[in-house]
Structures are given as C-alpha cells and as structure tokens.
C-alpha cells in the first residue's frame, strides 16, 4: 500500500505526492553551490531567530529549574540538612511515603492509560467508519467534556460521585454506595481519578485521532474495499497500523501527564478529610516536603524523579517509536 501512493496526485498542488514531498526535502541539497550559501545561512539565522523566544523560555522555565532541582537534590541548595552528595536522594527515596505514592500513581496509570487508548481509538475508528451528520455531532459532543479541566473538573466529579449531592444517587445506591465514604474508599481512588482524567482527556484525543484518520489516503482504503475488505478489516488492518504512531504519541504524552497527578487527590482529600493521604501521589509528596516540611532538598529529589519519568517518556517517543521519527520514510 505504501508503493501505491507514489503516483497519486497531491490533494492541493495536483503534483504527484512523492514529488511534492521531495521538493521540500531536496531543495537545500540541490543548491549546494558556493554562491547559494548566503540564502542558506540567512535561512538558518531566521530559524534561530524564530526559535529564540522559545529557547529562552525553555531555559528559564524548564532547563534552569531542572538543574536547580538536581543541584538542590544533591544537597547544594539553601537550607539543605545533608552533606553534598547522594544523601538527600537516599533519604527521599527511602521515605516511608515514597513507595506507596509510586504504587498509587502506577495503579492509576495501569487503569487510565489502556482504557484511554482503547476507548479513544475505538471511538475514532467507529466514527470514521460512518461519516456524516451524526459523526459531526458526536465529534462536537466528544469535545465538550474537554472544556472542564483541572480543579473544576474534580469538583464536578466530587458532586457527581457524592450520593447525597448527586443527581445519580439511585444509580450509586444500586452499586451499594450510600455515602461519599463508600465511593471514595482507598481502593476506589485510582479508578475514580482515572474516570476524571478520561472524561477530560478522551474526547479531545478522539477528535485528534479522527483528524489523523481523515488525513489518510482515501485511495488506500478504496483499494482495500475493492480487494474485498469489510469495514472491520479496513479498520483493523489498514487504518489502525496507519495511525499507530498517533496512538503511541497520545500514550506517551498521557503517561507523562498522568504521572504528575496532583489536583485530583488534593481536592478530594480537602473535601473529605481523612480519605486521601496528603502524600497520595508523587507530586503531592514533593509539595508536602517543600511547603509543609520546609525540606526543599527532599522535594527536589522527587521533582528530579518526575523529570526523569517525563524525559524517559519523551525519549521513548523520539527514539523508541521509530514510526514517529521516521514519518517520511514509512510513507
């Protein structure tokens, strides 16, 4: 199917697709002559000028804080109680609250990620399988929950899941949940936070995946149909492999975001005292040591841990998933 697209005209330019792509790719190499250097370096300068504001902000709010956290977690920051070295890290990672927080966040991820990916992909494929007015409406409906995010989202769910306040009280009672304590019990928390995150995130990703399906070459799908493939075959064998890299992208991004869970346990814990530990998630643990224990060094160690998780996810995205970095070659 990859070969077939070669002769296909580009939707906008009308040029064969391959040629249209190669135009941009070949342009620099086709003008390597000495006299052409000036425009090329002008181009590079322009690129750097456009990048500069981003790089400045990246340095100020990402790179410098990361190194400062690293320095502080090694005992170099103000008010550190440990000698310079790995003593603070050892202290932070042997903390009684660290492993439970890792387990909590991991449980949440195990519930949240697969459901998000399967649900969003399935929804996008189903919608794309039957285009029309119905699909546009559903796409719009999918987008609506994404408008409520962050703290208000948690409040919304807090109301929905507290039987005394919820319009769904009979439904909750049906599951044997008569009070907030029944719903927000320790073993339910990862699932509840996953529901909150799914509600906020899934709709947006469905729209993104639908968009990626729209961008697929219709000729490929048409050819498959002529070869006798039914809707299921097309979805499973044609569309799914073609959008796999988008799904991987969503997975990696959601993983990094979900690992930093903080608003959900914080707000539920504040509304229902004694229900959620102050140090339920890793981010809460970092907050607790920075602001309740005045131990910036230990807090930095947790921050560094979260950075490593985030960076690992990004590296997997860039190098691990070949399909993502080698987009053009796979075409």
């Amino acid at each position: 199917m990859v070969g077939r697209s070669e002769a296909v005209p580009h939707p906008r330019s009308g040029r064969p697709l391959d040629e249209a792509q190669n135009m941009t790719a070949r342009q620099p190499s086709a003008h390597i002559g000495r006299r052409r250097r000036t425009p090329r370096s002008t181009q590079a300068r322009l690129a750097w000028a456009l990048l500069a504001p981003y790089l400045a902000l990246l340095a100020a709010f990402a790179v410098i804080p990361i190194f400062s956290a690293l320095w502080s977690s090694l005992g170099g920051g103000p008010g550190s109680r440990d000698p310079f070295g790995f003593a603070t890290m050892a202290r932070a990672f042997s903390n009684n609250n660290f492993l439970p927080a890792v387990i909590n966040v991991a449980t949440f991820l195990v519930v949240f990620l697969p459901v998000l990916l399967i649900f969003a992909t399935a929804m996008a494929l189903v919608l794309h399988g039957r285009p029309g007015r119905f699909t546009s409406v559903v796409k719009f409906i999918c987008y609506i929950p994404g408008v409520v995010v962050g703290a208000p989202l948690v409040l919304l769910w807090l109301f929905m899941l507290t039987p005394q306040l919820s319009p769904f009280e009979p439904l909750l009672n049906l599951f044997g949940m008569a009070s907030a304590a029944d719903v927000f019990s320790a073993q339910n928390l990862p699932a509840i936070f996953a529901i909150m995150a799914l509600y906020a995130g899934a709709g947006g990703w469905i729209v993104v995946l639908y968009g990626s399906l729209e961008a697929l070459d219709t000729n490929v799908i048409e050819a498959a149909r002529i070869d006798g493939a039914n809707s299921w075959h097309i979805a499973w064998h044609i569309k799914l492999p073609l959008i796999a890299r988008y799904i991987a992208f969503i997975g990696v991004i959601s993983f990094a975001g979900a690992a930093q869970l903080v608003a959900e346990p914080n707000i539920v814990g504040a509304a229902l005292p004694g229900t959620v530990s102050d140090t339920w998630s890793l981010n809460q643990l970092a907050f607790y040591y920075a602001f309740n224990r005045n131990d910036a060094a230990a807090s930095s160690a947790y921050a560094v841990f979260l950075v490593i998780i985030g960076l690992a996810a990004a590296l997997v995205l860039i190098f691990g998933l070949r399909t993502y970095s080698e987009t053009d070659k796979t075409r």
Partner: protein
Amino acid sequence: MTRLAQRRKASALTGSALVVVLTLALSACAGAGTTSGPAAEGDSDLLVWVDATRQPAVEAYAAENPDVNITVATVDGGDLASKLSLLSRDPDSLPDVVFTANGESVAFARDYDYSADLSALVPQDTLDDFGATISACTDGGKVYCLPQDISTQMLWYNQALFDDFGYTVPTTWDEYAELSSRVATEHPGYVTGSCGDGFCPNVYYRGSSCPGISADGDDAVIRIDSAEECTRVTAMLDPLLADKSVATLSPFDPDMTQLGTDKKVLMLPGFVWYGTVLFRDTFHNAPGEIAAAPLPTWGDDVKGAGAAVGGQWIVGAQSSDPAAAAALIESMTTDEDALAAAVTFPAYGPASAAWIEVAADSGFYASDPTETFASARSDVTGDLFTPPGFDILAPFANAVAPKLKQGDTLSSLLGAWQNAISQSVSDAGYTAVIE
C-alpha cells in the same frame, strides 16, 4: 482552597488551627497580598505577617496606634516556615511580628533563631494570666510567643435525644463505650463519636494522656502500641467502629454533616468550639438541644483532657522596635472584648472568662456550659509544648483513616500509624524507636 490543604499540615493539627482554616475556607479566597497600614509619621516601623483572619484585627490596631507605622502582609500559614527560612539570610527583610496557626514559635526559635524571648518584653503578671497555655511557647525557660487561643475537650451531647431515649450522660470511658454499644443495638443509625481523621487521635488518644511520642535525647520513642494509655483507647474504639456507633468520618465530612442535620449525632467528644462551629452553624441544631459535659475519664482520676494551643503570636528577635512589637501581640492576645467575641476559646485567663460568659448568655446550650468550659480550661495543667515533628495526628489522617473507612480495624492499622509517625520524627531529625 489551599487553606484546606493547609489544614492537613503535619506539624500541629490543633483544633483551633482548624477553626482558622475553616473560617478561611468560608471566606472563599484570600490569596497572599499586601496591604499597607495608615502611613502615619511614626517612631517605629513594624512589618507584621498574619493570616487573612487576623488581618482586620491588626489593621484596627494600626488605626488606633498612629504612632506605630504598621505594614500588614498576609502570609499563608503553610508558607511561613519556608519564607522565614529563605529570609533568615537577610535579617532586614524579616517581619517584626508573625502569627502562626500551627504552633511553630519554638521551632522558629530553634531552626532560624527567629523568635524573640518575651520574658523581658511582656510583664510577668500578664504571662502568668495565660496559665498553663504559655507552656506551648516555652522552651528552656524562654517564652517565645503569646498564645491566642486554646482548644480544650469535652463531651458534647444532644440533651433532647438523651431525654427521649432515657440515657444518662457517661462520666467514664467505660460508660461511654457501654452506652455506645447500647445505642448500636437500640437505636442503630445514631452515632456517639467520630473517628475518621486527625480529630480521632486528638480527642480519644490525647484525651487518654496517650504519650504517643516522647523524646529521649536524639531518639523519638513511639509507644502507640505499648503504652497502656494508648492501647486502652484502641481496645475501646475497635468494637464501637465495628458496630458503627462511632462513625469512621471526620466531624467535617459531608456525610457527618448529613448525620448532624438529620439529628443522628447523639454525642460527640470533641473541642470546645464544636458548640458553635459544628452544632450551631453546620448541623443547625436548635437552641436548647445541645449541651456540654466534661470529657469522660479513664477512672484513674487522671483527667486526660488533651488540649492543644492554637494561634501563636511571635516577635522577631531582629526587630528594630521589640517593645512596640510586643505591645501589638499583647493587645492581640489579651484584649478581652475582642477575644470574648471570637470563635475560639481565648488562652488568656481573664478573656476566657469573658468568652465563657458570652457563650452562657447565647441561649444556644441546653444547660449552662459555664462549669464545663471553666473546668475544661483549668484541667489544662501539663506541658503543652510539642517538639517539631512530634505529631500523631497527621500520620493518623494519612495512613490510618483511609483504611479505617474501608473497614479495617484500628488495631490492624497501628503498624501503619507507627510507620508514618516514624517518618514524621525522622523528618524532624530524630531517630524513631518503636516500643
């Protein structure tokens, strides 16, 4: 809503700190901001850090004392320690007066050399009038703060329901346990106590003089599972949690509010301010329903009324005008008229008497609470000072309460509790020893 998070602070989850926090939560949002006092030409400049609740009182003081140029800054209680720690390298920028709702005066003296010794700044007579409550400010013979309020405990009960059911108010914990079990069989659905967050150890364990943690040099000895004063509480509570007469809910849980408004709270051992904050304003009990009795005893004549000191006013040791700063905090903690109208029970003796009078005249209580309130205050005789990190309350709320709600027994969770306490004391630099 960060004030609510602040409520869960590990340091000292004192009752009155909670009132402050609740009041803050009610006042919606009070972000850190700076307001200036009257810019009068004054002999001295004072920088005052308070929470949003105390801000009006300080501003009123500034208006009455134009010779002192007061700048008020609202600083969130949770940020105090980190801010002082950052500024300790630049003494000129440190505040002259700090209010803490978390009992940190001695910690600030120990960790940052911040708190000034007030023995020479405040008249001895005034210090004496604070009675035992001043012990929370005292370390090594030095007085590092003036306490604003104190939380003492008592047994709150619904007089109307007691009359209906024909019960008598228990005076010992054995009677309390017996009555609770009776309620579970005779009137299921009614509750006789709450054990779902830090209030539970605060009321039941500290009310039993349970030592919890005690310092032994660099060791912090944890005796939740060995000291008799602690184990008897666990043994009493587990059956009551099982028969649901003691609810696994915080007094401030929405489910508890539901029970309260349904008039299902038969009795509730708790703090002196529950009368107004919980029963009158949250459960909406009618006047003449609720009464207070002294906290039950363990029958060994030891009145284990656990008390906690709430707000503390501190003068900075580096202050350019310590006398003016001391005059301000003295006014804040001894002004009888202002304190008598406050939500929390004043620490200053004469003001607490005025406060009790206001409560007795309010017409809310089913019987005159004067004697109960006064005796609850005079019961406070011990040393109220708690070393930093020596907290059994937040570890309970974090490690025990969530699983208690799930149906686990208290005795099965003592290990988790001790584990969390160990972490808290080692964070404070002690070596945890579980006995």
